[in-house]
Every structure is written in structure tokens, then in C-alpha cells.
């Protein structure tokens, strides 16, 4: 498995670095036209010879899967080299072609002959070109041949795989008593090898062994202690914590698996390394030690991982919510499975090196597969959950039956003699199971991050909230994005991994990914994931650029330039809409959607849209006009029809007005454009207020006039220019009517001034004995109902009620007085 992974990584690096090496080689080779053909011919011949060799090797190693894979990799490299050698001719071919073009075609039969030098050159060029073409066609046929060989290898490997799976061994031979004697022989051989090595090592290399072991141990300790120091906070599960968040559980599980495993891994790797370094190892001992180290490392890692995920001792810190007893059993069973598979692997290495008989291999695999099958069935039989009523509940049905089926399948296949199949299935169960469980935990953590407020509590979230101005809601949304991204990443990482495990080739996966990325054709429309994604990203970038530009223009340029708020608002809105429209256009074209086809659709639909969205369009256009013409700006007091209030926001479709009762009125812009709009504060806030006063007939009107004028002039908020004016407006039916007309610098203060003036008028009139008549009303006699019989209780209750009302009124008055102090009253 490790080797397969390494190979995959090697292949990937080759694939990634291949284009670079192409170009470099092509540049280097393009400079030598003289011996070019001969050089490349030689190279291609050498490549052909190598290919011949490989073809023979394929026949020889037909049974060896790993060497077939090696050959395949090398053949791919050869194919690449042949392409590179053909590339070397490109410059020369270009030169020849352009020269031939300059020379023109050979003269036809009837035309005058051309000079010899021209025809000679043409001849030479044509023949060189023919040679080059011949060499390239050699390279081409070589590459075709190599592709054929690669296909053949693929077929052979799948054939080999099928053989492994379908080969049936006769178990009665393999499991006869002969096996035990074989095993004893083998063990004594192995014991001899190891003990002779040990005695050699102790005699001659004892110090080296000690040194190597101590150095390795020291390294591991440094890592473990340093890791604990660094990550101690997240490393230890705190038993006192009643309800740790899922993320902290996850990070504890992660670190408490990673650090010890890393330490053990470092210890094992450095032990092997130093043993090699001091030449302690001899013969096959190195291989055995490697295998042993790998087995110990894997078993340790599995044990740590299951312990961390299931935490048999600390139920609060469990990642997968099973009960304590089953959790303990699960840890034991998984560890046992890892041990069995590890021992099987170790024994297979020994068998390989010792050249042991086939029966032993079969017996070993048989034992391992049966044990894995039994463990699977045991796991399926566990009842890990507890119901509300305290009874134990089994795994979900699908999981239980799958595990049962797999376990039974392994056992039955092994019993029937299909050892290869059983071994394959048990290995796949373990590996795929591990991958799936890891992916599941990943999904759970993504879900945990996506929950409300979870992201803000993570380290990244805390760092973001302290180092940037993101609000809680923004962090929450970011958490959602992160959780979606984690989900996508899990699918992207684990799906190919599982496919690889099941024997798909990396090339297939790459080809699928490529197809998905570059586009799937549906009819004449191409849908490509990268196209759409890049379109979206371009739009987002454009959007943020617009926002940034808007903010910069508004905050830095226009604010400093003391530009009027209305103009600022208009410009900012216009810039915003233009930028978003531009970003959308660029995004659409980046997504690969042809704008000209959109134009066609728009043309066809524009008539329908024109009728259907008439109102919206007219409002939109009105909004643009409002922005350009600016009959009112944000903060103005306007009167439009029945609505009177302050303008809060002007957007493109509608304008938001807040009335003085604090009701938001959304007024479509077309109303504001088509109808008359009164603006109290258009150019300035200057405004006039009128206060009507009536005095009784017989009063001294001159005196009244003088008093009123004095009051008006005496008020501090009343403007001196235009002058306050008192109008003797009417001989009314009950009174002589006057009107005080005063101008205010800010008409928003109208109510305060009116109040002050009315109070002052009353006060002065009573001082000067001027009467304000009230119109007499007709008195209507009402039939009073009979009084209730006197009832002390009722009188008392009424009295208490009145007292309470009075007290409430007092309190209300005080409260109002307090809240009023800061604000001035609204004008009507």
C-alpha cells in the first residue's frame, strides 16, 4: 500500500513537471540544425531499443504486478521522450516552410525555367523536410507502439488481478499437518537468522545499537515533550468539562492521535535509519526490521485513533456517540484487526524472503481472513446505543447488515479456498472503512463549524474577531462558507482516494476531472465547472473592487473635498450600480457564456419585458433621474402627496421616507418624478410659520399689534431678516383676528417656536387685560341617569382609582419630561 502511494506520488510529480521539461528540452535542441536529423534519429533509435527491451521484460514479468507498474511508468516516460525529440524539429520545419514559401512553387510546364540555384535550394529544402517528416513519423509510430504496450500492461494487470481473486486453492493440502512442520521449519530458520544477527550485533556492534536506540529515543522524546508543551492546551481532554464543543473534541482527538503517532514514527524511523547508518543490519534483517517498524507504527496509530475517537474513559469527549462499554469493545476489536493484518503483513514479508512453501502462505492468509471476518461480525453484533427506556440499540440496519455480509463473505470465501479474494476483501474493508470513518468525522466537524456561533469560538474565528472588524453575523456566515468548503474538500479528497483503493487508475480519475473541469457538452451548450466557478469568482472580485472603490471615493476623496452629501450619495450610488453591472458582465463572459447570444435573447424578450416590467423600468429610470437631478437629498423634509417626512434612502427603484410618526414609507420613484414634491429644506432650511390669535371686539388693536410684534421680535430663534410681521387678517364673527408671521432659520424648529410664542401671548394678554374670546357653543341638556344609592365602598374604590390615575399621570409626565429634554419635537 505504501509503495503504491509512493508510486502514485512519483507519477503525479512526473505529470506535473512534464510540461516544463518539454519546453526546456525543446529550446535546447532547437539550436542545432546541421546534425539535427541524425541526432534525433539516434535518440529515437535508442528509445526504440529500450522499448524492445521493455516488451521482452513484460513477457518475463507477466506475473509480477509491481514490476508491470514500473515498466508502465518507464514506458510513459519513453513516450514523452519520443515526443520531445520530435519537438526539436519545430523551428527547423518552420524555417524550411517559410523559405519554401519565399521561393514560390516550381514553374509549371509552360512557364520559363527558373535559375538553377533556386531549384537547387528548393530541392534541398524539400528533401530535408522529407527526412524530418520521416524521423517524426518514426517517433509517432514509436509512441503509438508504446501506447499499445501500456494498454497491454493494463490488460495484463487486470487479468492478473482477476486471477488473484478467482484462483481457488485446495485447502485440504494447505491445512494438512504438513503445514505445522513447515511452519516449525520456517520459524527455526527465522529464529536462526535473527539470533545469529543478534549475537553478531551484540558482539561487534553493541555500542552502535545502544547509541542508535538512545538517539532515536531522544528524538522521539523531544518531539513528544515539545509537542505537549506547544499543544498541551488542546492536547489533553479535560475530564471536568461537562459538555466540550464538538470542535474542541475534534482537536483533542486530532492532536492526541497525531503527536504520539508522530513520536513513535520518528522513533521507529530513526532507529532503522541509525541502524543502517552504523551498518548494524545485515542480510534480510533490514527488511524484517522495516516491516516490523511499519506494523508497529500502523497498529499504534490505529489504536490511538480509535481511542481518541471513542474515548472509552471520557464519555463527554467521544467523537462518535456510542455508549461506554461498546466503545471499549470497539477499540479492542479495531486494534485486534490492525494487529492481525499487521502480523499477516509481517509474516508475508518473512515468507517472501525465506522462500517458504505455498501452503504456508495460504494457511497464514486463511487464518488472517477468518479472524478479520469474525471481528467484522462481532462488530456488527455490538449494540452500541442506548434507547430512552434503557434498552440497548444495535447499529443502523444498513451498517449492521453490510458488516455482517462482508464478514460472512470473507469467511465463506476463505473456507471455499478463494484466499486471494478473501484477503482482498478484508484489506479493502479495513482501508476503505478507515477512509470512510475519517471522512465521516470530517463531515461531522464541518457540520459543527457550520452551526450558529461555532465558528466564532474557533481559534481562527477568535483571531479574526480580534484582528478585523467582522461582526458576529459575518463570522457566522464565514463559518457556513468554511463548513461548505470542508464538505467539498472531503468529497474531492476522499472520493479519488477510495476510487484508487478500488483499483481505478489515476489516469482515469484525471481524465474525468479534466472532462468535468473543461466542460460537458449538452447540445451546443458547454457547461464547465471551472468556467462557472471562475465567472462567480470574477464577479465577486469585481463586486468587492467596486465596494472598495466606492468606499475610497466616498470616504477619502469626496469627504475631504467637502462635497455636498446629496452629491456624494448620488455619485456613490451611481458608481456602485455601474461597478456591479460591469462585474456581472465580466463575470458572465468569464463563465464562458457568449454575450452575443444573450443579446439575441434580450432583443427577443425586450418587447415582452417592456410591457411586463413597465412600472419597474419607469421607476428605475425615475431613480436615475432623481440621482442626476437631485430635487431632494437624504435628510430633507419633503411632502409628496399625503406623505410628509424625512428622506432616509434614495435607491434606484424606490425612495424611503420616514414620517414624523416614524413610519417608513417606500415611495416608488415614478411618483416622485411625475407628481409635485414639496421640499421644505431644498436650498436652505429657512421657513415661515404662522400663528393665529383672536382678540375680543373692543380691545385696543394698536396695542395688540404692538404686543404681538414685540413677542415675535423677542424670540431668539426668530430671524431679524426677513422681519417678523403681524397681520391684522380678519374681522371675524367672534373676534378680531391677527396672524403672527415669523421666519425661522431652521423650519424644523417650528413647533418649539410656536409653543413659546403662544405661551408668551397668553401671558402678556392677561397682563395687559386683553381678552381672547372663545366661541360660545349651544348647551345641550342631557338626561342624567339616576344616581347610584350611596355606597361607601364604591366611593372609596372610586377615590382610590382616581388617586392611582393621578399618580400615573404624574409619573408619565416626569418620564416624558426626562425623555423630551434631548430631542426637539417634530414639525407636523
Amino acid at each position, binding site marked *: 500500500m505504501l509503495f503504491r502511494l509512493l508510486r502514485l506520488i512519483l507519477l503525479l510529480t512526473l505529470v506535473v513537471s512534464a510540461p516544463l521539461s518539454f519546453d526546456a528540452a525543446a529550446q535546447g535542441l532547437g539550436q542545432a540544425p546541421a546534425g539535427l536529423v541524425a541526432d534525433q534519429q539516434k535518440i529515437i533509435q535508442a528509445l526504440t531499443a529500450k522499448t524492445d527491451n521493455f516488451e521482452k521484460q513484460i513477457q518475463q514479468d507477466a506475473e509480477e504486478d509491481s514490476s508491470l507498474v514500473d515498466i508502465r511508468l518507464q514506458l510513459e516516460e519513453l513516450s514523452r521522450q519520443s*515526443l*520531445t525529440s520530435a519537438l526539436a524539429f*519545430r523551428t527547423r520545419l*518552420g524555417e524550411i516552410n517559410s523559405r519554401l514559401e519565399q521561393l514560390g512553387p516550381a514553374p509549371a510546364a509552360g512557364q520559363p525555367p527558373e535559375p538553377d540555384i533556386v531549384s537547387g535550394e528548393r530541392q534541398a529544402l524539400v528533401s530535408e523536410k522529407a527526412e524530418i517528416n520521416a524521423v*517524426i513519423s518514426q517517433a*509517432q509510430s514509436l509512441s*503509438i507502439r*508504446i501506447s499499445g504496450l501500456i494498454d497491454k500492461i493494463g490488460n495484463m494487470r487486470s487479468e492478473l488481478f482477476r486471477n488473484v481473486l478467482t484462483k481457488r486453492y485446495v485447502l485440504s493440502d494447505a491445512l494438512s499437518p504438513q503445514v505445522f512442520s513447515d511452519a516449525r521449519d520456517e520459524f527455526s530458520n527465522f529464529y536462526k537468522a535473527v539470533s545469529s544477527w543478534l549475537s553478531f550485533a551484540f558482539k561487534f556492534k553493541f555500542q552502535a545499537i545502544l547509541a542508535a536506540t538512545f538517539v532515536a529515543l531522544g528524538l522521539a522524546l523531544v518531539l513528544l515533550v515539545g509537542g505537549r508543551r506547544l499543544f498541551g492546551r488542546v492536547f489533553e481532554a479535560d475530564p471536568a468539562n461537562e459538555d466540550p464543543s464538538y470542535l474542541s473534541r475534534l482537536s483533542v482527538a486530532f492532536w492526541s492521535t497525531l503527536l504520539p503517532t508522530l513520536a513513535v514514527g520518528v522513533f521507529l524511523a530513526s532507529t532503522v535509519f541509525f541502524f543502517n547508518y552504523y551498518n548494524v543490519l545485515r542480510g534480510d534483517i533490514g527488511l524484517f526490521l522495516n516491516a516490523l517498524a511499519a506494523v508497529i507504527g500502523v497498529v499504534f496509530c490505529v489504536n490511538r485513533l480509535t481511542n481518541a475517537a471513542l474515548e472509552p474513559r471520557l464519555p463527554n469527549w467521544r467523537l462518535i456517540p456510542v455508549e461506554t462499554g461498546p466503545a471499549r469493545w470497539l477499540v479492542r476489536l479495531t486494534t485486534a484487526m490492525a494487529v492481525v493484518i499487521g502480523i499477516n503483513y509481517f509474516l508475508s514479508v518473512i515468507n517472501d524472503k525465506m522462500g517458504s512453501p505455498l501452503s504456508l502462505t495460504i494457511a497464514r492468509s486463511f487464518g488472517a481472513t477468518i479472524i478479520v471476518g469474525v471481528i467484522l461480525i462481532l462488530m456488527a453484533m455490538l449494540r452500541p446505543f442506548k434507547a430512552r427506556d434503557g434498552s440497548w440499540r444495535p447499529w443502523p440496519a444498513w451498517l449492521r447488515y453490510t458488516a455482517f455480509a462482508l464478514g460472512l463473505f470473507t469467511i465463506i470465501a476463505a473456507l471455499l479456498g478463494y484466499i486471494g479474494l478473501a484477503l482482498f476483501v478484508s484489506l479493502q474493508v479495513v482501508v476503505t472503512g478507515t477512509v470512510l470513518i475519517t471522512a465521516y468525522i470530517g463531515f461531522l466537524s464541518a457540520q459543527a463549524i457550520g452551526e450558529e456561533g461555532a465558528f466564532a469560538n474557533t481559534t481562527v474565528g477568535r483571531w479574526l474577531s480580534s484582528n478585523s*472588524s467582522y461582526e458576529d453575523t459575518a463570522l457566522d456566515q464565514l463559518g457556513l462558507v468554511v463548513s461548505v468548503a470542508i464538505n467539498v474538500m472531503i468529497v474531492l479528497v476522499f472520493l479519488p482516494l477510495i476510487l484508487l483503493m478500488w483499483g481505478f487508475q489515476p489516469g482515469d480519475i484525471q481524465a474525468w476531472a479534466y472532462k468535468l473541469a*473543461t466542460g460537458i457538452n449538452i447540445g451546443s451548450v458547454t457547461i464547465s465547472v471551472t468556467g462557472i466557478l471562475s465567472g462567480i469568482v470574477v464577479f465577486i472580485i469585481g463586486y468587492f473592487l467596486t465596494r472598495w472603490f466606492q468606499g475610497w471615493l466616498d470616504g477619502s476623496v469626496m469627504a475631504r473635498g467637502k462635497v455636498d452629501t446629496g452629491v456624494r450619495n448620488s455619485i456613490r450610488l451611481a458608481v456602485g450600480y455601474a461597478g456591479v453591472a460591469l462585474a456581472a458582465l465580466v463575470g458572465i463572459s468569464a463563465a464562458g457564456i457568449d454575450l452575443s447570444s444573450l443579446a439575441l435573447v434580450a432583443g427577443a424578450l425586450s418587447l415582452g419585458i417592456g410591457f411586463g416590467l413597465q412600472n419597474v423600468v419607469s421607476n428605475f429610470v425615475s431613480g436615475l433621474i432623481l440621482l442626476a437631478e437631485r430635487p431632494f437629498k437624504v435628510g430633507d423634509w419633503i411632502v409628496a402627496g399625503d406623505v410628509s417626512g424625512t428622506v432616509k434612502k434614495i435607491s434606484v427603484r424606490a425612495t424611503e421616507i420616514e414620517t414624523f410618526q416614524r413610519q417608513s414609507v417606500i415611495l416608488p420613484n415614478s411618483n416622485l418624478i411625475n407628481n409635485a414634491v414639496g421640499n421644505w429644506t431644498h436650498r436652505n432650511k429657512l421657513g415661515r410659520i404662522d400663528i393665529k390669535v383672536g382678540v375680543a371686539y373692543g380691545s385696543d388693536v394698536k396695542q395688540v399689534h404692538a404686543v404681538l410684534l414685540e413677542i415675535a421680535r423677542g424670540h431668539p430663534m426668530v430671524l431679524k431678516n426677513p422681519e417678523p410681521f403681524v397681520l391684522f387678517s380678519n374681522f371675524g364673527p367672534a373676534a378680531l383676528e391677527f396672524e403672527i408671521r415669523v421666519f425661522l432659520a431652521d423650519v424644523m424648529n417650528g413647533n418649539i417656536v410656536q409653543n413659546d410664542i403662544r405661551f408668551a401671548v397668553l401671558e402678556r394678554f392677561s397682563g395687559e387685560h386683553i381678552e381672547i374670546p372663545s366661541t360660545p357653543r349651544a348647551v345641550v341638556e342631557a338626561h342624567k341617569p339616576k344616581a347610584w344609592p350611596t355606597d361607601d365602598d364604591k366611593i372609596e374604590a372610586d377615590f382610590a382609582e382616581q388617586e392611582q390615575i393621578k399618580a400615573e399621570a404624574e409619573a408619565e409626565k416626569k418620564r416624558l419630561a426626562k425623555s423630551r429634554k434631548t430631542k426637539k419635537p417634530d414639525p407636523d
Partner: protein
Amino acid sequence: MPCEMQQRRWEHRYCNMWKSLVAAVALIAAIGSVHAASAVNKDAETRTLVVTEGGSKTDLALAGGETVEFCPNGCFVTLPNGDLEALTGSETVEISGGVARIK
């Protein structure tokens, strides 16, 4: 609107955004570097390229004005004039007047 922040604050905010932007652009560039060779036929009539890729020869017919992506991993191409050329998979083959040029 988020832009109506105090001056200092929005500068800080947009500074962070810039960082994310740069990261996003780098990511896009990394993803976008998957290339294939493309062939453009600028003539009115159909031209044919013979493409040898992965052990098989296929005729790639290009209608007038058509652009086709092909050969992501390197291939051999027989051009209309009979020349054989190798492509690495990042070139553009342009056909005009019956003559193909590789760029």
C-alpha cells in the same frame, strides 16, 4: 451599506479583503493552468488535422471559423500540407489559407 463605516475601520476591513482576494486569484491561476492545445480554422472551408494521441489516429475536422481544444497531454498532428508535428499540449494551431502555423 458596509461602506458607511468609519474611515479607519473600513480601511482595515478592505485590507483584509485584499489579502483574501490575492489568495483567491492565486488559487484561480493554479486551477486555470490546466491547458490543452487549441486549433483555430480561419478559413471558410473545412480543414482536417490528423491527430495521433494515446495510440490512435483520429481525423479532426474543423469547420470554417471553428476553434477546437484537443490533445491535453501531448500528441502528433499531421497538418493539412502533409507536415507532421509534435505538440506538447499548450500550443495553438492556426489554419489560414490552407496553411497551418503553430504558435
